[in-house]
């Protein structure tokens, strides 16, 4: 159903926008306000990151947000409550983003069932390659949720097809190597990579890692279905406060 939502939305928009927050950063209240701003500004999907103490794939901005949120006492249960709250108030799909240990400790089956209960549509688990994710994949699919898997610039064609067969909803394409939050040069050099991604999956493509301004998104139009803004909104909140988020997104 995520796929359908995306395809439907793409009929009226050239490209969709997915944003990201770390639940509980800079506070639980602030998280709620940020989501509100984002939705009002027209965002199409939102990733809710459940903070983890060892966010290996995240760069400094999101890493610090994870830590701060945990220091303030954010719990997994709190994140589910938050998810329930936003998914009932706002009419766009929300996804969880987190690391596998959060699911593992919770119990993968229960975690997925509770996702359903709180209205979350899918999940992105960057440290869970499909080979390790059989239990998760099955639980997600049998609950009609979308396990979002990742393509990277080093992924082979064959492996893309394999990953695509495990995923549902859309594929998350890393625009470059590295961790979140660093700059990416969006230029024609990437064309080939996106063509390769497209060729190897029938799922919609979300492109993230380093997307941070209008030019980036303009470049992605026609190549990707979803542009993902991650660290940039956190940086914005840090520097200019929550109020700046809406305008920033409208400007994209």
């Amino acid at each position, binding site marked *: 159903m995520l796929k359908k939502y995306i395809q439907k939305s793409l009929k009226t928009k050239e490209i969709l926008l997915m944003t990201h927050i770390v639940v509980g950063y800079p506070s639980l209240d602030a998280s709620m306000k940020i989501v509100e701003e984002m939705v009002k500004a027209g965002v199409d999907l939102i990733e809710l990151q459940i903070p983890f103490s060892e966010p290996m794939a995240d760069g400094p901005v999101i890493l610090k947000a994870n830590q701060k949120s945990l220091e303030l006492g954010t719990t997994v249960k709190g994140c589910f409550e938050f998810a329930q709250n936003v998914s009932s108030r706002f009419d766009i799909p929300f996804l969880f983003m987190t690391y596998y240990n959060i699911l593992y*400790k919770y119990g993968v089956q229960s975690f997925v069932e509770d996702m359903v209960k709180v209205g979350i549509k899918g999940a992105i688990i960057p440290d869970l390659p499909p080979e390790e994710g059989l239990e998760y994949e099955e639980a997600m699919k049998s609950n009609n949720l979308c396990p979002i898997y990742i393509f990277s610039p080093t*992924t082979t064609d064959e492996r893309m097809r394999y990953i695509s067969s495990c995923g549902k909803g859309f594929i998350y394409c890393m625009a470059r190597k590295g961790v979140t939050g*660093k700059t990416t040069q969006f230029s024609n050099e990437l064309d080939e990579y996106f063509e390769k991604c497209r060729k190897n999956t029938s799922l919609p493509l979300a492109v993230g890692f380093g997307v941070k301004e209008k030019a980036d998104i303009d470049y992605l139009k026609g190549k990707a279905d979803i542009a993902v803004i991650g660290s940039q909104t956190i940086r914005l909140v840090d520097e200019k406060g929550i109020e700046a988020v809406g305008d920033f997104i409208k400007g994209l």
Partner: protein
Amino acid sequence: MSNDRGYYGEFGGAFIPEILVATFDELIRQFRKVKDDPSFWQTYSDLMSNYSCRPTPLTFAENLTRHFGGAKIYIKREDLNHTGAHKANNVMGQGLLVQRMGKTRVIAETGAGQHGVATATMAAKFGFECTIYMGEVDVKRQRPNVFWMEQMGATVIPVTDGTRILKDAINEAFRDWVTNMDNTHYVLGTACGPHPFPEMVSFFQSIIGKEARQQILELEGKLPTRVFACVGGGSNAMGLFSGFPDNSVECVGVEAAGYGLHTGQHASRLCSPDATVGVAQGYKTYFLQNDDGQMKETHSIAAGLDYIGVSPILSRMHQKGEARFESATDKEVIDAVKLTMKKEGIIPALESAHAFAGAFREAAELSSDDIIIINQSGRGDKDIFTIADAFGDPKWREFIKEKALDYK
């Protein structure tokens, strides 16, 4: 030993970001090649005997034996390795692999600093660029090692995130690797992390057990009753234990009990009920974590044992009862260092001293027909700042204060 994805029972695996999959595929391919090539082991052990001083001795601790009046105590002298610890074995082995893979840069995490020094040393010898990640707390407690790493040409980056110790350094190293894997190899320092690291590091460290087995058979004509090793990530323990797969030999791993298991301020994953199975830093094992799966702060006087996880291979051995796990408190460790210095003229690293403390507890209950081997994974010189503080040496304090005045 492990299946294709590096599982030992339920432990192990490779929980890695997609971007690293190709890198790991290549690493596994290369590692399989060298592991199956007997000439590689020859190259490796030649390097270790020409550059480090392998085989390291198996020293009979006559005075300690007499002191406890029980089992005959032998000490496997990994402290005599170049750079002063068993870490050299792993690092030189991976260095040869890096050469084969044609990479030009290495990165590593370090806790006690030993692995960092070993990696910086290897990088100097092989001509690789080198960056070392080290928790800020460890940078403080192991400054001499930082100095040597830098002098050897490595860049040492203090990690200021998280708990600012070993685990955080590992995260940072991974962050570097996902960016630079084209030319960079991550020289993981212990038998942890995603497959093939536990297997690969254990493979290189198995040189310890191979030698020890041969040495004790030559010296005593029989196998030891028990072998003791400290357990941080588990590499020196794996190295020793792998030489004694026999049912008749009991393998004992000694973890850090810090201020005491009951205080919660420790780093005991296998012998305390505080740890549970989880997945972090790319592999599944026992972790010191809370119910949400967030990692806890750990504590040990020994920076090299101050870690949340443990080798999946050891977790499996624990589960199957193939090894026994004990712990030693900071205080017991200091006492063990003192006793070993006074009796044998040998200074164990604080990490290694956990194995000594564990063995000392049991030596007397054994008979003179029994033999125990303690793995002295490293030498204690590096710990002078910590040991001098633990001993409360007033002359050392005076010395440091005077030095500081010179620097005004």
